[in-house]
């Protein structure tokens, strides 16, 4: 693909393939933590990214939740942004042009509260220049099923996947929710339904309380937990999912260094997404990529792909239900 035309042959090969999508390196930005990319243009070299994933887009614009929307927790943060976004139409007219001009694949994260909404957004995105793939956020409540999140039920997750896949025309990445008993069951269902790749994890559901006011710290009461605090859970889920699916898995959760990213790749991730860390260090993605070059050189890796799934363990497979601190 054209993005890769400028690859410097003297550098180690960091290219990875997410199905038919080739990335110059495995580092993407996680949805909702990188705006529409332009916000970062003065802070880093956007063209060096593996891919950009933009803030979740819904069919209609959403104003989001009342404040406070964020609160810091131990080594993490809770957010209840409430899916504030400009809606798919304005996204296409106002944001896509700039994004299409970037020398990196742009993956559009979409969300909906019904199957029809997911399909409708996908249709509108179809053929829009610069859209290299769609990431489907299935952690949203299905209003028709009493608000049960699509991503917590294998059948619902599969139906969204199949519907979006049928319409998309570009590779479809399904973003899994970690708030489930058995993430491998969802992963398999989604793979069977035609997903091209899986990304995980989305945030864990959490809550914080302000003792002084005796109120929830977030106006929305609950929020999504992200950051280094969740990395152990994310790594475990990526490892479990990578063992049961054959499509590429993208690791997300608490990544803020090259070491973190490589650990996810050892666990089986083909690529990674960096979220909360962008808030702490807006150059973090570029630094992670630089670190990967250094690592590949130091370890004399011909290609970074050689470490994917390279975790050395005698344990062949894990029972997803096993509870270690039982």
């Amino acid at each position: 693909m054209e993005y890769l035309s400028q690859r410097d042959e003297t550098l180690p090969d960091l290219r990875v393939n997410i199905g038919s999508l080739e990335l110059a390196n495995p580092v993407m930005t996680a949805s909702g933590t990188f705006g529409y990319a332009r916000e970062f243009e003065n802070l880093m070299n956007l063209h060096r990214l593996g891919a950009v994933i933009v803030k979740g887009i819904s069919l209609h614009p959403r104003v989001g939740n009342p404040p406070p929307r964020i609160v810091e927790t131990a080594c993490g943060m809770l957010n209840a942004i409430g899916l504030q976004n400009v809606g798919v139409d304005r996204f296409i007219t106002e944001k896509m042009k700039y994004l299409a001009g970037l020398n990196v694949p742009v993956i559009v994260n979409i969300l909906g509260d019904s199957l029809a909404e997911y399909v409708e957004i996908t249709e509108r995105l179809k053929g829009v220049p610069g859209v290299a793939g769609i990431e489907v956020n299935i952690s949203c409540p299905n209003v028709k099923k009493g608000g049960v999140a699509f991503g917590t039920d294998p059948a619902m997750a599969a139906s969204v996947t199949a519907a979006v896949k049928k319409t998309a025309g570009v590779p479809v990445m399904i973003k899994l929710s970690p708030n489930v008993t058995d993430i491998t069951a969802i992963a398999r269902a989604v793979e069977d339904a035609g997903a091209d790749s899986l990304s995980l994890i989305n945030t864990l559901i959490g809550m914080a309380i302000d003792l002084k006011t005796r109120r929830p710290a977030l106006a929305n009461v609950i929020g999504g937990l992200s950051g280094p605090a969740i990395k152990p859970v994310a790594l475990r889920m990526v490892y479990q999912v990578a063992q049961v699916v054959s499509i590429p898995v993208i690791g997300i959760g608490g990544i803020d260094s090259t070491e973190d990213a490589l650990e996810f790749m050892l666990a089986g991730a083909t690529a990674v997404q960096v979220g909360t860390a962008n808030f702490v260090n807006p150059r973090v993605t570029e630094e992670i990529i630089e670190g990967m070059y250094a690592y590949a050189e130091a370890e004399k890796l011909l290609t970074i792909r050689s470490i994917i799934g390279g975790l050395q363990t005698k344990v062949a497979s894990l029972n997803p239900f096993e509870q270690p601190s039982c």
Partner: protein
Amino acid sequence: MSQYQEKATVVRVEQFSEKNFRLTLDCPLIAESAKPGQFVMIRTAVGKDPLLRRPFSIHQTSKAGRIQIYFKVVGRGTHILAHVKIGEELSVFGPLGKGFRLNALAPAVIVGGGLGIAPMLFLAKENSRLKKNCDNDLIILGAREKNEIAPLLDDFRQFGLKLLTATDDGSLGHHGFVTEVLQSVELPAGCIVYACGPEPMMAGVNEICRFQGIPCQVSVESVMACGMGACLGCSRPAKKGTYTHVCLNGPVYDAEELIWNI
């Protein structure tokens, strides 16, 4: 609009009261491009806890490439900052946000309450730089007690503006609120009021200005994760029935745009 992440060396630490501190930081890129009312995000911990940067108004810049922040210890992040030593390095990100819109002709009335004093020194400095004279300009500083203002008076006096003070306990200047001072003085014709402080104070200033038909700019706060438009966490309801993002659209607003959290 350029923003920088700098490794800033701490060159001076001043403690004004039990909880109030001023830091001088060597970060030439930020110092050079900063405007009054803008802010910086500072990492307080070396480890991952506290995780997020903390926002602070730029209190002052110097030609020597330094900036100052003036802050109060309220929690863990500011506690750590209060304990930094000269020579240590801090990661500083800025300048961020939209600052005050200064006017070379209109008289300025600058009102700072509590930690809202922080951005006002920079504002007063730029205001005096911009103008032929500041004879009609006025600064009103308020705080709980004398110690929170007194150490800054010399700095504020250097611009030759008229300076009034108020303290809750009467230990310096007017015994009461800055809003009472504002109400009691005759404001210069055609002036602009610039205010920063607790929400009830700014709401009061806004009220007074609206009544007298005086334009009023305020600098407000919000919780922030990124400080640069990426997280959408710093929302605040605005009058047009939608949310404004303090780090991008603010922290300085026309007072009339906002709904007060009181």
